[in-house]
């Protein structure tokens, strides 16, 4: 007994198709494909190329040189091959991005979800802690920590970035968990006598997956941009190679003044591209969380098979 009849005019129509866990997967759209391909290409670049390039910091007598055969992206002022450097830098930034994403997700998950479900004083305590962490200004905190730990490894930098970024996500997770906790099916599980940890894991967590995924992706973007900014200021992991440190060295090597675009453009471009790709992926995830967004995009409208003039006429009348 299925029906595809329309409901209220305000609810988008969806057919009762047979879907399993794929109900939770983002619908394949040009946005998602573009985002995944760009991000995928950059990740592959960062993982595979370093296997072929031995030492990106090997100096050479060439000095600053433009792209040519032998050095696809030219060299730094100490003759280091920039193509190899870029590959290693990609790997470095990706490591930071994913590390921060994971640590932040664990922290925000713990303080947001567990506190909200437990309720009572635990919820109050976690919530207070989250709010305090939210209010502490991130950049000054990072600068102070950086001042105390001048020799930073990627791991420490990732930790610092994660500590200053988990609080916002925790608040969101807390409010969603609070609303989920009062849903009837959670009450039904409690009435059945399910243990608390099982309810959290089996009933509540699956419904939080889209939000967690979105926060994870966002944390990666934040981490990469944050690291780039910090490194550019000289507060980053100066011993390692990341996009940010490349920009730092490019700045120190006066690349802009000397017009050596092959030094600072590639890392900057990759930061922008990767950030954009991840944002596209995030928009697709948003569509799962809020199905109403699906009908508003241009590609969705294309499916309606209306001529341009018909569409324009209808849009003018649209009650928004």
């Amino acid at each position: 007994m299925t029906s595809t009849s329309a409901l209220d005019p305000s609810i988008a129509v969806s057919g009762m198709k047979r879907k399993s866990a794929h109900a939770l997967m983002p619908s394949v759209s040009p946005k998602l494909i573009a985002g995944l391909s760009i991000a995928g290409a950059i990740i592959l670049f960062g993982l595979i190329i370093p296997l072929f390039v031995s030492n990106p910091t090997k100096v050479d007598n060439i000095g600053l040189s433009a792209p040519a055969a032998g050095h696809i992206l030219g060299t730094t002022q100490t003759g280091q091959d920039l193509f190899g450097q870029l590959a290693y830098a990609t790997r470095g930034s990706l490591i930071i991005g994913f590390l921060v994403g994971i640590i932040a997700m664990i922290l925000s998950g713990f303080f947001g979800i567990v506190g909200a479900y437990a309720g009572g004083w635990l919820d109050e305590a976690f919530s207070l802690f989250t709010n305090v962490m939210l209010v502490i200004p991130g950049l000054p905190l990072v600068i102070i920590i950086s001042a105390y730990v001048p020799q930073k490894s990627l791991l420490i930098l990732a930790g610092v970035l994660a500590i200053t970024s988990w609080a916002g996500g925790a608040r969101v997770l807390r409010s969603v968990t609070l609303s989920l906790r009062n849903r009837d099916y959670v009450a039904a599980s409690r009435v059945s006598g399910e243990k608390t940890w099982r309810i959290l894991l089996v009933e509540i967590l699956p419904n939080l997956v889209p939000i967690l995924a979105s926060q994870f992706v966002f944390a990666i973007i934040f981490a990469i941009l944050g690291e780039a900014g910090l490194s550019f200021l000289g507060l980053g992991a100066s011993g390692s190679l990341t996009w940010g440190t490349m920009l730092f060295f490019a700045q120190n090597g006066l690349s802009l003044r000397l017009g050596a675009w092959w030094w600072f453009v590639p890392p900057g471009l990759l930061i922008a591209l990767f950030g954009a790709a991840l944002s596209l992926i995030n928009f697709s995830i948003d569509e799962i969380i809020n199905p109403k967004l699906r009908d508003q995009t241009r590609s969705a409208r294309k499916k309606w098979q209306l001529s341009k003039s018909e569409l324009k006429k209808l849009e003018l009348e649209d009650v928004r």
Partner: protein
Amino acid sequence: MTRRHDSDPVLTIENFSVDYLGERTVHAVKNVTLSLGRGEILGLAGESGCGKSTLAYGVARLLKLPGMVTSGTAEFHSREGQTIDLRALAGEDLRAFRWNKMSMVFQGAMNSLNPVINIRAQMEDIFTTHRPEIDKDERRKLCGDLLERVGVDRSRLRSFPHELSGGMRQRVMIAMAMALGPQVMIMDEPTTALDVVVQREILREITRLREELGFAAIFITHDLPLLLEISDRIAVMKDGEIVELGDAVELYANPKHDYTKRLLASFPSLTGKRGDFIRSGLPTGLLDVDAVVPVDVVARQKRGGSDA
């Protein structure tokens, strides 16, 4: 009070169809033809998904994409003898028509009031938009009169929506819909979320106001016994089509379509013999549907075919 829908209609809808566009087009309203007599209350009955709200929104030009009117006409015949094609209205004409000649009380109307503006401001908004010539004092007095007409004390003009009960908010919505003296009011489930006691009061107001002001109304709801009490005629909708349309008393006494019989059989009689439905004498076999998922529907799905 003329209620002849055939000889003196205020609204004629002919072959009206509405589709929802998408990967699979959904025909929400299919070739609906009906007319509304001047001063008549027409009940539009049906369950969720039958298209009754979509029809109302379509006629009132409130459909949002992906909903689209694909065919048919809707014509408004004003008291002065003018015929207005509702689908052709645009721009200033549409604005002048809306609320003046035809107004609507929406489903969940209690949440349609702006929570941060008080009642008076929202009601005065109607007059400043449509009757700018009325001066401030006169406007204020009119708003107070309107409220009293629906049974709400004039002093509540100063209140904010959250300070009023659900029933009062609904009355305010009805007052606002009546403000410009429209000839047609479309009410989409106006009492569904209310207590049965409050519902009874609101219905009394509506019938009383109809007697006083002579507007015609399309009353949309799934509550058939309610319609049977207050409507002149009733249209039963299922899957986008009107399956039965007739005088309310006649429909109750002699339902013709199976679906109408089934709906009537879904309401137990309050005061009749215990065990009887609202309309006694209907076969109880009508109730044994829904439980089983028909095997052929399942098989059809597995084959990947479209379902009805």
